[in-house]
């Protein structure tokens, strides 16, 4: 990346010092002001950040590493899947022992409970006006950090070109029997969104039909993508970044965007009221929601960033073009909440029916 993260203001300040005394330095990257001097100084004084994240650990670490390069702030990450993170945050907060400065969840409903418990503190990022209303909490208690999508990846050594899966329906074909990897509907926002898309958009009986084809169930999809790479699975749901990791390792793998719809979910991040490093947490929110942070999300996560001017994800190296954020299927928000508990029970019945 040719971007120079020059903290120009420091130099300017040094120049100014001659007549004006020590002037506060802002954080400016690529011409975009990310934090004012007061926040930057306070954050630097804290020097560290503990982030409870539901994003892929490697992704979140990569972003935080860029953040560290820009700000010098060290970080520690706890990565859990959505529901587990929720349980942990609620338990810790109830005991007055919430350790995180910043948390994120992949579920609007769970995040609302966290908001209701007063666990999150408001913060207004400098890019406030540029961020569409549906990507932030009206009081700034949370922001959508990134939107991530699930696509298909298949093993090109095991699947003939003409048999390559192009749609969710293709997974029902007998040639993929026992060789499809899917994520459990109950693990995080994306698992549920996918299940919902399959039933609402693809086929009301999709779960039962796919279950009959004996897919392998995963909580996290990194292993599923690896199982495609090693040929244990022919095709699996995966996150684009997981597919890229396999491509980079030289595995015989190709990606496909399913025709009926690309399920996507949002990661909602907010600063905690009990943060030991509240300024570092706010600074990170400012940073990740900036164009600079958005670019990192697009490039490192292969997710869709919140900043309107940040690029969409792309894998030019492998000639893979990603659809724009508007093509993602996130489901009807009301359905998403209303149907969840009952449908997930049905999903469990369909896939764990014992006669497998």
């Amino acid at each position: 990346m040719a971007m120079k993260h020059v903290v120009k203001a420091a130099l300017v300040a040094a120049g100014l010092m001659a007549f004006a005394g020590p002037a506060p330095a802002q954080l400016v990257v690529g011409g975009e002001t990310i934090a004012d001097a007061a926040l930057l100084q306070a954050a630097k004084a804290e020097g560290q950040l503990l982030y409870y994240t539901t994003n892929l650990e490697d992704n979140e670490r990569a972003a935080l590493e860029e953040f560290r390069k820009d700000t010098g702030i060290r970080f520690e990450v706890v990565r859990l899947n959505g529901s587990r993170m929720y349980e942990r945050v609620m338990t810790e907060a109830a005991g007055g022992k919430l350790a995180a400065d910043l948390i994120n969840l992949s579920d609007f409903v769970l995040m609302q409970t966290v908001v209701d418990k007063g666990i999150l503190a408001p913060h207004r990022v400098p890019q406030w006006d540029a961020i569409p209303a549906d990507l932030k909490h009206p009081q700034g208690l949370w922001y959508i950090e990134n939107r991530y999508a699930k696509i298909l990846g298949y093993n090109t050594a095991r699947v003939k070109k003409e048999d390559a899966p192009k749609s969710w329906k293709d997974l029902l074909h007998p040639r993929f029997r026992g060789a499809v990897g899917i994520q459990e509907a109950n693990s995080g926002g994306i698992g549920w969104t996918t299940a919902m898309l399959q039933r609402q958009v693809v086929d009301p009986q999709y779960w039962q039909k796919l279950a009959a084809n004996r897919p392998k169930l995963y909580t996290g999809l990194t292993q599923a993508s690896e199982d495609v790479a090693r040929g244990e699975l022919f095709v699996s749901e995966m996150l684009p970044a997981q597919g890229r990791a396999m491509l980079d390792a030289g595995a015989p793998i190709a990606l496909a965007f399913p025709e009926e719809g690309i399920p996507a979910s949002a990661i909602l991040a907010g600063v905690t009221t009990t943060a030991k490093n509240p300024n570092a947490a706010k600074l990170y929110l400012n940073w990740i929601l900036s164009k600079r942070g958005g670019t990192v999300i697009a490039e490192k996560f292969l997710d869709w960033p919140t900043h309107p001017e940040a690029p969409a994800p792309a894998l030019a190296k492998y000639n893979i073009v990603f659809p724009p954020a508007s093509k993602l299927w996130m489901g009807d928000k009301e359905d998403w909440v209303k149907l969840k508990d009952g449908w997930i029970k049905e999903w469990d019945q369909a896939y764990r029916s014992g006669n497998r």
Partner: protein
Amino acid sequence: MSAASPATAIEARQGLETGGGLLRYALPVALMLALTFLVLYPLGTLILASFLDAPPRPGAPLGLFTLDNYRALFDANNIRAAINSIVFSIAGSIFALAIGGLLAWLLARSDVPAKPIVALAGVAPLFISSLVGAVAYSLLASPRSGFINMALGDLGIPFVFDIYTGSGIVFVFALFYAPYAFMFMSGALQLMNPELEEAAEAHGATRIEVLRTVTFPLIKPALLGAGILTLVLTLENFPVPQVLGTPAGIETIPSLIFRNVMSSPARPTQAAASGMLLLVLMWLLVWLQGRFLRNQAFHTVTGKGFRPKLMPLKAWRWPALAFAVLYLALAVILPLFALLQSALRSHSFVPNFLSLFDVSAFTLRHIAATLDYGPFQGALINSLIVGVMTALAGTAFHFLLSYYVNRTTYPWRPAIEYIAMMPVAVPSLIIGMGFLWAWIALPLPIYGTLTILVLAYTARFMPQGFRSVSSTILQVHRDLEDSAIVAGATRGRAVMDILAPLIRPGIASAMLLLFLLAMRELSTSVFLFTAETRVLAIILYEQWESGSWARVASISLLYCALLFVITVAGRKWVGLRGL
């Protein structure tokens, strides 16, 4: 050891000496408080939670009373999980018992060649935890790209070994729990008096008849003990069904509990109810064990010195050795081979079996990256700290309990012993939840520290610690201490000058046992860890769930190497007996 001490006079004197002191009241109260904190309170919280509609969270009002959690146990999925648990556990235990028992018998009572190999086969799998074993077998025996299946396919053998099935789970249980049966049985077999067998033979019994009518009944208590131990351990085992069953939609009670806590929508109180079901099953087993073994002391196992007679295997000598070698290959060599393959390959696609040996595809990149991975380093340090602290503090506490129960005449001894042994029947997966809910509510700054893990391990491994310390204390007759007291020493002085030097090796062995158990612990820690307090087993599990195979394999290998070094060092220097 003789059952009843004749030293009533000394007991009376001892009573006189210590009976009036404050200690007589303070000590039992203190021990009871400690046990309440460590065992009763977390367990009580868990039981309470199973009757509530929301988990007890400090500060929040208590949830509403409900029986729905228990009603839900009759859901189709829950019933299936319960049946799976019972079937897998029984089948796994039978095979583990057969393998471990046979190996123990071959080693102690037969003229099998190359006995060191048989002895190695009996215990070597211990440094491969069941989590690592399950992970290794996903690599070895997944239906399409498992190394074993790849070899079978390339050889043109039309058979596919699918580890993601109920039989796969039973198979892995059998492999990795056989050492427990082995250790339990070899002690009994080695100490068995051969005169009884010789007497039978002298009266004209055939070899088989001797085995059936003399040997087998004699070792029945050990067999039962080993059987119930493996039943309890497999029943509460979480990693194996999680790694091998869940992907195929096959659940057991522990994996169902985990799903209920960890999935969305989470049902933690329903998990608590499932935990109660598991608890009842395990309690039943422990109770059965108590019943079977009552009045069945090892009368034939006197400490008398004799060399047990070896049974000539004749034509079966080499097949017997082949059996031991095959087991060693399945339980140790193949898993390590699979882990090495995955840790050393630049990427995981292997076109055919022969290319497994293509050295050009190998790289040390993953192992180097793992060693350099911050969380791994942190976890390694945490594991060592927690292991050492548990060994020290845990053994000290277990010694106190054991000494109190076995050597004093103070009150509440049976109750204290009973509570100390209780965790043996509490499923480790839910007790972690109990610790979390119970302890986080207290104004103690332990959450998020390594201390909470040390406390949890001290509680969870109390039965093992207590039993191993007790057996050591009981080996030293109390007359030795009592004579010191009669001669005017204080009790403290008697313990320090007489008992301590005599039991030092046994205590060291108990500490090592605790250290190893703590290093391998996963199921309880999974609810208690935070960012800074991850241990090796947690890192491995996290990587299994959301990391790469190469990383998982690298961590597994390093983890095994560490356990191996500790076990070997332990056996060499401390004379570790049993796990």
